[in-house]
């Protein structure tokens, strides 16, 4: 193929180019030829294939049919991933916090602690975010799925381990437990740890 041929495609080359471009399916040599009044289009196809070689679009023959396609190395352009930055909803944040503090927990336990039902989508969001994982099933009747946090969770929140989560005392000191610090103090004093929580959970569940 000469430079001149490349720069100034002849009428047949242009016709073949336009025909294949506009076609809604790959075409055989015969079909192209028929479309163009029986002209011999083989040379034109070779010229075109040469012209498009290395460009963003290529002329290729597959199963004796010719068509244009995006260059294989640019196929990633056809399917782009786009990241939409989205803030976790209030509900999802609560569920995440509960999983982090109480893991492993079942959905019923989460709901009991939150005191409200947890939409299926909320946990899905956390699973999608990669912060929560399914950690098996609890060996109780119904074998509920239990959830735990992931290393990604620790990484995202800059925690070395779950132990880095502030304890109840620290939450209280930060004023995050405002209306109930007295009661919290009481059960802390008892040294029973999570027990009251579990009890609460039971009550809340019953109330559901």
């Amino acid at each position: 193929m000469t430079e001149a041929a490349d720069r100034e495609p002849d009428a047949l080359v242009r016709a073949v180019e336009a025909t294949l471009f506009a076609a809604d399916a790959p075409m055989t040599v015969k079909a192209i030829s028929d479309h163009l009044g029986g002209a011999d289009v083989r040379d034109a196809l070779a010229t075109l294939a040469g012209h498009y070689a290395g460009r963003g679009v290529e002329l290729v023959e597959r199963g004796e049919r010719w068509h244009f396609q995006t260059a294989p190395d640019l196929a990633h352009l056809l399917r782009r991933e786009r990241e939409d930055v989205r803030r976790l909803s209030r509900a999802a944040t609560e569920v995440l916090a509960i999983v982090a503090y109480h893991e492993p927990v079942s959905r019923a336990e989460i709901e009991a602690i939150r005191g409200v039902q947890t939409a299926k989508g909320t946990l899905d969001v956390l699973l999608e975010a990669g912060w929560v994982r399914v950690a098996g099933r609890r060996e109780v009747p119904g074998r509920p799925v239990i959830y735990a946090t992931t290393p990604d969770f620790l990484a995202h929140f800059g925690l070395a381990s779950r132990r880095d989560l502030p304890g109840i005392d620290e939450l209280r000191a930060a004023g995050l437990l405002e209306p109930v610090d007295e009661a919290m103090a009481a059960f802390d004093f008892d040294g029973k740890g999570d027990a009251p929580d579990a009890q609460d959970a039971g009550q809340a569940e019953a109330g559901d």
Partner: protein
Amino acid sequence: MSETDAETGLFSGIDAWDGPATAPTEDKALYLELDGWEGPLDLLLDLARRQKVDLRRISILGLVDQYLVYIDRAEALRLELAADYLVMAAWLAYLKSALLLPRDEQEDPSPEELALRLQLRLQRLGAMREAAARLMARDRLGRDVFRRGAPEGLRVDRRNAWQCDWFDLIQAYGQVKARTAPVVHMVRDRMVMTLDSALARVSAMLGVNLDWMELRDFLPPHADPRLRRSALASSFVAALELARQGKADLAQDETFGPLRLRRAGA
């Protein structure tokens, strides 16, 4: 003609006009088909074009005559004429008489002004007619030029990058705790001395004391009043239990009197 063409270009090109005009007629007899026109202005424009001059040099009087002739013929043939054709005919008849009247009897607006206005309207409609024809004759996508027949299409897969910061997380947990506070509040009512601890406490105290002791003496000193009540109840039950087990003796001198106990066999 060529002069005006050069001057006015698009909108004077009578010969270039190949729009939806009515069928040409040799003897200038009009094609009496009302469907062919879109209203009186359209008919007037068609008549004007038959004058084969620039629309700006059109003879309004001649145009009026042609229009009225046309309407007369249509009526002679008893064609059903739409009202707006008749309104236009009446108005043109008025315009014609006004144009022919001596000047001093004329009202405002002057017939010349009305004629000019009609002319301007015809020019504008004519211009749009030609513009439409030229537009339709362009290389049109899907008819003359084509987009790619089978584009791969661009797909954008959206992925959510979830955001949540440390403070929100911690605050959320705090608020869950705060929200369930009424429930947690019950914990304070459970500031109780359990039966087990009462048993242990009473047993231990019986072990170091041989004399009768009043039950109240077994209660923890300085305790919260509510804890005292709980402790009293638990200690009472513990005393009964110890008595049942034969580990303690109970004595009460009168109804609702102080309950005393001591180690069994002391």
